[in-house]
């Protein structure tokens, strides 16, 4: 009934299945002994994902790492009280979204979007959850620490990569991920260009000085 899988594919499947954390193709390769994990392991993973597609268990890729999980449409049967992930506060949610959509982002930048100071605990909670991490410093005066989301963040929210963040393309296209300063400047330039009269007045003003 089943086509006999070759041992390499079986080994890849077993390794991912046994692992207690998602693994990259390279990590899997180091277990199953592949010299060219990028090719061998990935094609094995594709075959395995295909075998499980539509069944109760699925093989998924999140942020370059692979793991098995139950099919999403079975949630109602499997949901149990004790499994509920911790709820984030509203501040926590906002900060998480801002880090995810704007990364890398400094604390000051987060605060300027939210319009309030962010309690120190908020970022800590996100880091403790393993969803946000410090990622170096920005090369500006003061060298503030900047933050990014982690691979665990992608795993938790079922995102293959940041490109899958809901609506990120639309937000970017609408300029809503640009700093206000840039957007204001652009809007003013547009206004001037589309309004010859104003422009003429501005030029005249400038000359009259």
């Amino acid at each position, binding site marked *: 009934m089943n086509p006999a899988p070759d041992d390499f594919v079986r080994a890849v499947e077993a*390794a991912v*299945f*046994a*692992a*207690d954390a998602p693994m990259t193709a390279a990590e899997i390769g*180091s*277990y199953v002994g592949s010299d060219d994990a990028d090719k061998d392991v990935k094609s094995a993973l594709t075959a395995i994902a295909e075998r499980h597609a539509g069944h109760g268990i699925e093989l998924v890729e999140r942020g370059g790492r692979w*793991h*098995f*999980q*139950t*099919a*999403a449409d079975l*949630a109602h049967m*499997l*949901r149990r009280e004790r*499994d*509920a*992930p911790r*709820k*984030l*506060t*509203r*501040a926590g*949610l*906002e900060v*998480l*979204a*801002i880090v*995810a*959509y704007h990364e890398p982002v400094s604390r000051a930048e987060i605060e300027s*979007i*939210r*319009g*309030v100071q962010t309690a120190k605990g908020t970022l800590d909670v996100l880091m403790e959850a393993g969803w946000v991490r410090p990622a170096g410093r920005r090369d500006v005066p003061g060298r503030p620490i900047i933050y990014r989301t982690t691979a665990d963040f992608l*795993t*938790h*929210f*079922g*995102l293959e990569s940041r490109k899958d*963040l*809901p*609506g*990120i393309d639309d*937000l970017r296209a*609408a300029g*809503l991920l640009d700093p*206000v300063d840039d*957007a*204001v400047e652009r*809007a*003013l330039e547009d206004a001037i260009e589309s309004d010859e009269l104003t422009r003429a007045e501005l030029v005249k*003003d400038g000359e009259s000085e």
Partner: protein
Amino acid sequence: MTGQGAFDADFAAGRDADGPQAGAASDDVFTVELDNWEGPLDLLLTLSRRQKVDLKQISILELVEQYLAYIADAADMKLEIAADYLVMAAWLAYLKSGLLLPGDPDIDPSAEELALRLQMRLQRLNAMREAAARLMARDRIGRDVFRRGTPEGLRTVRTRQWHASLYDLLASYGRVQARTAPVTHMVANREVMTLEAALQRVTQLVGSTLDWTRIEAFLPDAYRGALRKSALASSFLAALELARQGRLTLRQDGAFAPLYLRGSSA
């Protein structure tokens, strides 16, 4: 902050004007409860949603009026209003006058630019609110999808794992630099507090001390750094000597605990 329990749903609904704050019958009566908002921008966003139009089309002037009215209401009710709400109110009042008066070319940035800026900030905050709600609605691990309950686990492949901390690394470099740097030895001429001086001072002070008092209290206030350290050492010796003579009692609750002195009550 609002209660967390109600939050997910509240958030998903976009917290519009018909949300939990609008308990009163009339749409215009907005229960004054500043605790519901995380700062003025949050309140402004909630108010702007009541205009029920795209955020790009909201009337900033109307929004300003609403905010000012809201703060005035809160003031009437003698509620304590946080400073940032008042600062925003003052700024909005300024913005309002700028928008109403004919454009003054000398004012830079113009009221229109400030209004545009405010509108953009509201759009950005709103965008992140909605993004967060959509993020939370995804199939999340542990809520909608589940990982294997009892994985066997994989052992690491690395045969030997070397460990060192960044601190170790930096300390090593410091050590190398220190070791190879040319070294000059100089014996510094130090200011010290002599044992005689310490004996005199402690004797004087302990006489008027009835409570257990830390030895640090006996040191001259003006002494700092190495001199203070010397004073501490001398005073300690002095205290031992005076204790031997039965003129004071020493007390320490444990190794390295504070050391207390008290004059012997005759």
